[in-house]
């Protein structure tokens, strides 16, 4: 039986967390993602599945609660928006270093600093290039619909445990605040068995204790650990690239956009096609791993690429690396919480076609 609901993206995250069998959520409210915590508090998941929901005293406390719970093998998540995610970066780096699975949700707002509460995509660099200190990567999923907000919670937990790595859902104020039809997945049981190879669950007689740490003062052992991490990120690049294409087959001009910008750009592609412009949209779903090969192939096919992002131009660097100079790549974006309309994107595309730039 299909269960359809009209939900906000933030509510879908919360409901999906309960259904995915999460053991705990630790968070601290911030606009535009406060509905995640609000929904969880109202829903009382302790009654439904035994899931713990706790409003921590700060974002830093919340991410360290995630660190501790993740070390025991529990399925845990936290969510915040840009300034709050910046506060969490130390903890995220530690969790990545200690190779622990968890889910982090960023419903991005305009920055820098406290910025605005309106939607933005200016956290791309922070999300895909590390964010905290050290050589680490998060596996980054970029939902473009409320449906994907729900689906990616389940997928995110699976990937986090597959790679023992934090997974980030990079959303924004548009996807968080809008309501759409969602088909909810069925309640998954909470996992009650924990991998003895790494989970910190007490010391049994037959083996040494497991230690969750990101500290190793011996540089050679630390280097070895880094090799292992890099091999893991490489495996993600080989196995986890996800993307979606619209009208790319015969496209002469390509828009690359993720999240809400992809939705806006899809409309721009429709408007362009109506005008006889052979435009297509490529939507990266994973931002790390980035769909390099697919973009490289399309760069050989098209006459120009427009990167659309609510930022001053961050993803464009990855597109340019993938396109490797084969074709002109330009950026179009609005900043600081301003959302572009589809006809603005079309205008930018027409500018690219005419050989101009902003």
């Amino acid at each position, binding site marked *: 039986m299909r269960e*359809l609901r*009209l939900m906000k993206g933030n509510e879908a995250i919360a409901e999906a967390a309960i259904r995915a069998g999460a053991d705990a959520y630790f968070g601290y409210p911030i*606009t*535009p993602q406060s509905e995640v915590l609000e929904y969880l508090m109202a829903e009382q998941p302790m009654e439904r599945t035994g899931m713990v929901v706790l409003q921590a005293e700060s974002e830093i406390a919340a991410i360290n609660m995630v660190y501790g719970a993740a070390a025991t093998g529990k399925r845990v998540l936290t969510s915040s928006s840009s300034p709050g995610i910046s506060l969490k970066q130390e903890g995220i780096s530690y969790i990545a270093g200690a190779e622990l699975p968890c889910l982090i949700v960023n419903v991005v707002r305009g920055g820098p600093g406290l910025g*605005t*509460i*309106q939607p933005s995509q200016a956290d791309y660099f922070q999300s895909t290039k590390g964010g905290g200190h050290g050589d680490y990567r998060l596996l980054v999923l970029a939902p473009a619909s409320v449906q994907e907000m729900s689906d990616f919670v389940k997928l995110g937990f699976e990937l986090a445990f597959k790679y023992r790595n934090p997974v980030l859902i990079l959303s924004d*104020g*548009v996807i968080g*605040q*809008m*309501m*759409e*039809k969602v088909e909810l997945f069925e309640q998954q049981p909470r996992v009650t068995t924990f991998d003895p190879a790494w989970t910190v669950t007490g010391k049994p007689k037959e083996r040494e204790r497991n230690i969750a740490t990101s500290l190793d003062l011996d540089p050679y052992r630390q280097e070895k650990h880094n090799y292992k991490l890099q091999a893991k990120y490489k495996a993600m690049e080989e196995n986890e690239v996800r993307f979606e294409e619209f009208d790319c087959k015969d496209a002469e001009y390509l828009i690359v956009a993720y999240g*809400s910008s992809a*939705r*806006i*750009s*899809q*409309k*721009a592609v*429709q408007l362009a096609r109506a005008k006889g412009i052979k435009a297509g949209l490529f939507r990266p779903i994973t931002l790390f791993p980035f769909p390099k090969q697919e973009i490289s192939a399309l760069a050989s096919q098209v006459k120009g690429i427009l990167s659309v992002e609510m930022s001053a131009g961050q993803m464009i660097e990855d597109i340019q690396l993938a396109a490797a100079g084969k074709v002109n790549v330009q950026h179009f974006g609005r900043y600081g919480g301003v*959302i*572009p*309309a*589809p*006809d603005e994107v079309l205008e930018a595309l027409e500018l690219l076609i005419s050989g101009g730039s902003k």
Partner: protein
Amino acid sequence: MTEEIIIAGFGGQGVLSMGKILAYSGIMQDMEVSWMPSYGPEMRGGTANVTVIISDERVSSPILNQFDSAIILNQQSMDKFESKVKPGGVLLYDGNGITRHPERKDIKIFRVDAAEEAARLSTTKTFNMIVLGGFLKIKDVVKMENVIKGIKKSLPERHHHLIKVNEEAIKRGMEIVYPVKN
């Protein structure tokens, strides 16, 4: 069929909940929908607006600046959105508090004096449903039976005794809406 609608007025007029009911009605009719509110400090006593899209295809952009229909409930929204109606599109407004009436010649203009009617019926809270009725009379994007299902889904169960009042308000809106010559 894709209907792109902006509903705009003051915070507190029921703009967002009208949009929600419209969106839920769309789901009940097995259609794709999106509901994108303006959010933030501007909603406190200021203007509130929501973009609702109802379509038989997957909805692309939830953000638009051209609309098939505009439902306008205060002067600020009239100033902001009259120019954003597509040529041939529909503008529906409540005359209450409007000092500059719509002037465009290339769109269809309708008026529903819902605030006045709600006050007359002493059911001010059904104001937005009278407006919705007016809209559905002009654009039957969703069937009445699905609107009732949509209301049922939108309202928490403790408010289900109000469904009848809302249904009547919708019907009243359908009766009192009228085209404005332009």
